[in-house]
C-alpha cells in the first residue's frame, strides 16, 4: 500500500522515524530519527563503522531497514518496488568509488538514467548532460570513457550523472575518500557550488572544512546512533558529548 502524504513547504523532504537496521544479528542502526527540510545541507561524521554510510544508503534503499519508517518526498519506503524506484529516481547518490559505467562514454553515463527512467528524448537528455558537464568543468571529456579520466574527474562526472535526473535530494557517501589529495578540492568546489544553488544535501565526509563552511547542520554518529547534531558553529566550538569531543580531538 502506497502511503502518499500531501507536500507542503514545511513538510520535511526526508523523514526517518524510529528506524532500526540489523545485519544478520548485528544491530547496526538503532532508533534513528531524522527530519531533513528542503534545501537543508547536512554533514554526517563519525568514526568508521558508526553506521553513517548505512544510514544514508537506507534513504534510497540500497540497504533495507527492518523497523521504523523512512518517508522521502511523501513516498514511504516499503518492499513495494515501484515506490523504491520512484524514490531512487528522486534521490541522487554519489559513491566513494564513483561507480561510473566503464563501458559507456561520459555523456552516455549521464543520459542513461534520463532516457530509460525519465523517458527523456535522447537529444534533450544529451543537451542536459552537456549542461551539467559544463557545470562540473569537464565538458571537453564528454566522448571519453571513464577509464581515461582521473579520479577527481570521474567523481565530478558521477555528480553530474546524478544531477541529470533532477533529484530533489543528493546523498554523498564519502565522495572524496578515494581521491588523491590534490583532487579533493576540485570535487569539493563542485559540491559547494551545488550547496549554494540550494540543493538539499546529505554528505558523509571527513572534510571538516567543508562542514564548517557549507553545512546547516552537522551530525555526529557513533555505534549506530545519532549522538549529537547542531549548527556547525556550536558543533565544533562547543560539543556537548564526550564521544563527540573525543572524535573531534582526533580528526581536527
Amino acid at each position, binding site marked *: 500500500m502506497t502511503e502518499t502524504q500531501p507536500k507542503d513547504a514545511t513538510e520535511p523532504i526526508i523523514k526517518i522515524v524510529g528506524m532500526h537496521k540489523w545485519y544478520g544479528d548485528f544491530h547496526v542502526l538503532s532508533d534513528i530519527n531524522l527530519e531533513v527540510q528542503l534545501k537543508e545541507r547536512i554533514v554526517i561524521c563519525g568514526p568508521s563503522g558508526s553506521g553513517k554510510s548505512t544510514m544514508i544508503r537506507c534513504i*534510497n*534503499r*540500497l540497504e533495507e531497514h527492518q523497523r521504523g519508517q523512512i518517508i522521502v518526498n511523501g513516498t514511504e519506503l516499503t518492499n513495494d*518496488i515501484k515506490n523504491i*524506484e*520512484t524514490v*531512487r*529516481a528522486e*534521490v*541522487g*547518490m554519489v*559513491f566513494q*568509488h564513483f*561507480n*561510473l*559505467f*566503464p*563501458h559507456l562514454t561520459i555523456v552516455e553515463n549521464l543520459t*542513461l*538514467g534520463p532516457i*530509460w*527512467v525519465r523517458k527523456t528524448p535522447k537529444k534533450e537528455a544529451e543537451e542536459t548532460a552537456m549542461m551539467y558537464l559544463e557545470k562540473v568543468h569537464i565538458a571537453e571529456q564528454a566522448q571519453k*570513457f*571513464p*577509464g*581515461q579520466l582521473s579520479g577527481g574527474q570521474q567523481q565530478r562526472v558521477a555528480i553530474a*550523472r*546524478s544531477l541529470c*535526473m533532477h533529484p530533489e535530494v543528493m546523498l554523498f557517501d564519502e565522495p572524496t575518500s578515494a581521491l588523491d589529495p590534490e583532487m579533493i578540492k576540485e570535487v569539493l568546489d563542485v559540491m559547494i557550488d551545488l550547496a549554494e544553488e540550494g540543493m538539499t544535501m546529505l554528505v558523509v565526509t571527513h572534510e571538516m572544512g567543508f562542514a564548517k563552511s557549507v553545512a546547516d547542520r552537522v551530525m555526529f554518529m557513533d555505534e549506530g546512533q545519532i549522538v549529537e547534531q547542531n549548527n556547525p558553529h556550536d558543533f565544533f566550538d562547543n560539543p556537548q558529548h564526550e564521544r563527540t569531543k573525543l572524535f573531534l580531538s582526533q580528526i581536527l
Partner: protein
Amino acid sequence: MSVPEQATREYLDAPIRKIGALAWLKENLFNNWYNSLLTVLTLLALCYVVPPFFKWAFVDSLWNTSAEACRDIEGACWSIVPNNIKFIILGFFPEGQEWRPILAMILLLSLVIYSKEWTRWNKYLGWLWVAGLIVMGTLMYGGVFGMPVVETAQWSGLPLTMMLSFFGMVAAYPLGVLLALGRRSKMPAIKTLCVVYIEMIRGVPLISLLFMSSIMFPLFLPDGMTIDKVLRAQVAIILFTAAYIAEVVRGGLQAMPRGQYEASDSLGLNFRQTMRLVILPQALKIVIPPTVGILLSAFKDTSLVVIIALYDVLKTTKVTLSNPKWTGYSTEAYIFLAVLYFICCYAMSSYSRRLEKDLHTGH
C-alpha cells in the same frame, strides 16, 4: 666555469635496442644454454619431418586425376577431393538441385560477414536475418516455386554441419545467458530449476543426449506424432551448449563489482534495465574468450551427429572413403576436412579477438 643550474630535468633517450636478424636470434632463440639446445633440437626435428611431408604433399602428389592414376605414385592423391567434392560437400541432396544448398550457404555466409561489424547491429539487421532465414529454409526444403521438396533426411554434408552449428550457437547463447541469470535469481524455484538443468546437462556427454533425442524421445511421443530427426538433434545440441554457456556467463556476472548494481539502482533503473544496459554488456564482454572456446567446441561437436545417422560433412567424407576406388586415401581426405574446420574455427577466434579489442574502453 660551472654550467648554471637548470630548472628542467634532463630527459634521457631510451637505450637503443639491438636490431637486425642476428640480434633477434640471439635474444629470442639463443639467449641461454637450454633455449639454444631447444632451438637446435627443434630445427633437427623440423628437418626430419618437413621435407618428406613437402615431397609427399606437393612434389609426388596428384591433384586432379582418376583414382587409377593414383595407384602408381608415392605421394599424396589429392584427386580424392575434386573427384568427390560434390558428395563430400552436399551429400545426398538430390541431383540437379545442388544450386539450392549452395545458394543457402552463400546467403548464410554473406549475412554472417555483413553482421561482423557490431556497429551495424540494429533492428533492421534483425529483420534482414529473419528474411534471410526464411529464404534459406525455403531453398533447402523447397515445395514452392517449382522446387521439389527435399526432406530433412536428405540434408547432409556441409549445409547440415553449418546449420547445426550455426543455430546451435545462436540459440544456445541467449538461452545460456537466461540460465545464468536464473541461477543467480533470488527466487528459489527458478534458481533450483536452473541449477538442476545446468548440472544435469553438464553431467552427461553430448552423445548420450543425441541418443536420447533420436531413440528415447520418440518413444514418449503419442502414436503417429513425429518430430523431425534433424530438429531433435539440433535441439539436443542447443540444450547442451546452453548449459556450458550459462556457467561461463555466470562467471562474468560474478566478476561485476557491486558498485555497478548500486549505481544503476540509485539512478532508478529497474532490474531488466540494469541487466540489459549495465551488467550484461560488461559481463558478456569479460567472458568473450571462454565463450568462444565453448562455441568452437560446439562447432566441432556437431560431427557427433553421425552416431544418430545424420550425414554431416565428416560422415560424407567417410562414405566417400568406403568407396573401394578411394579407400586408401583417408589421410588426404581428412587433411582436407581438417583445413575446412580450421578455416571456420580460426575465423571465429580471430573475429572474437577483434570484437574484444573494439569493445575495450580503457579500464
